[in-house]
């Protein structure tokens, strides 16, 4: 059950998908599961929808696990899902957020890659699509979006870990989100979660040009990082992608921002400098807990500053 599920352990894709079903069954009036497409290898792409009303409302999108080897992100996504159902009706702030906005949560954004990390190659990052004319498999789904696609900070070599793909949205896992975001049309906040550099980033990654909402995004990030650090004193940096970490074209939140989703952020969760993608399982819950505080700060801002 969702009560006995071990949130302090890493889980396989099947276990996470079973967890989603359990969560929906236990909270039918709050949570539903939507399939937004299929992966390259035919696995369903599921999104959990947290909503207190039937009508379409402004929404917050959160995704984890687009880079499959970043296991702490999928594990945190599971924890967030449980936290939302536990908090609704008890935590006044989360309750008021859900009374005004829907939350969409895609826990395993790259299921083919995630399954591959459990069976064949723990360090797999990309999708599992076959590249025509190359023996190398997969595309970096965080270089495959239609925002500066093909520019600096992405590779044209299919054997590279940052291979951008043959064209924007070539990856089904990316296209499914693009289609969903466009068809929904009222997503106000988009948060894409990665690991492990302890950063909270906002657009842009493909250009040094400042985002028009730079100052506001910077203020939100500052507040969110302060909330995060208040729990375990984990030190985060924040800023635009290109100035804070490195140039990256074709990135997720550059596309969402250009699509009109003003509150577009991407996280790099904790590592503390020792483990990279192999963060020990005993750090899953502390990571999720501190990240939740930052997520709440961003979601509260969204609720209080509609546009």
């Amino acid at each position, binding site marked *: 059950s969702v009560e006995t599920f071990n949130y302090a*352990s890493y889980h396989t894709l099947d276990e996470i998908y079973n967890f989603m079903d359990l969560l929906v069954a236990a909270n039918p009036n709050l949570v539903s599961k939507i399939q937004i497409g299929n992966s390259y290898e035919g696995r369903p792409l599921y999104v959990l929808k947290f909503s207190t009303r039937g009508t379409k409302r402004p929404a917050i999108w959160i995704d984890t696990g687009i880079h499959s080897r970043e296991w702490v992100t999928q594990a945190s996504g599971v924890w967030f899902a449980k936290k939302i159902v536990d908090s609704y009706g008890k935590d006044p702030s989360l309750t008021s957020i859900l009374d005004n906005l829907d939350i969409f949560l895609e826990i395993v954004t790259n299921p083919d890659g995630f399954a591959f990390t459990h069976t064949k190659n*723990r*360090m797999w990052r990309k999708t599992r699509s076959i590249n025509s004319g190359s023996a190398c498999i997969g595309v970096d789904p965080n270089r495959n979006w239609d925002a500066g696609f093909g520019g600096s900070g992405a590779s044209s070599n299919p054997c590279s870990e*940052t291979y951008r793909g043959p064209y924007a949205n070539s990856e089904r896992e990316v296209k499914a989100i693009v289609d969903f975001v466009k068809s929904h049309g009222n997503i106000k906040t988009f948060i894409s979660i990665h690991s492990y550099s302890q950063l909270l980033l906002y657009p842009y990654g493909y250009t040094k040009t400042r985002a028009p909402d730079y100052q506001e995004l910077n203020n939100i990030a500052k507040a969110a990082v302060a909330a995060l650090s208040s729990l375990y004193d984990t030190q985060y940096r924040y800023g635009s992608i290109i100035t804070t970490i490195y140039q990256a074209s074709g990135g997720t939140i550059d596309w969402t921002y250009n699509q009109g989703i003003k509150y577009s952020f991407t996280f790099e969760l904790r590592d503390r400098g020792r483990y990279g993608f192999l963060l020990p399982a005993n750090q899953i819950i502390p990571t999720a807990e501190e990240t939740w505080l930052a997520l709440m700060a961003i979601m509260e801002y969204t609720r209080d500053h509609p546009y």
Partner: protein
Amino acid sequence: KETFVGNQVLRIFVANEADVEKVKELEELQELQLDFWRGPGGQDVPTDVRVPFASLQAVKIFLESSGIRYSILIDDLQTLVDEEQTQMIRQHFMPQ
């Protein structure tokens, strides 16, 4: 199942733009089969790179001869992967 025996993860600290360019050169050398976990970026964020055992000497010599500072973030990646696997199995057989 791919193993990572003898693979190390190096943390590279660049001091200037010339160092960044050198690390980018390294990234272009496909025969080394390097897996850049992070970067190469700017001076504020270190670059982390997984180096297969067969490429370790070449990479370390390249960095040292270029005067670029680095440290070993993960000494043997497979050991950590094994620990993770053991922990997952143990968790599955323990009462919650």
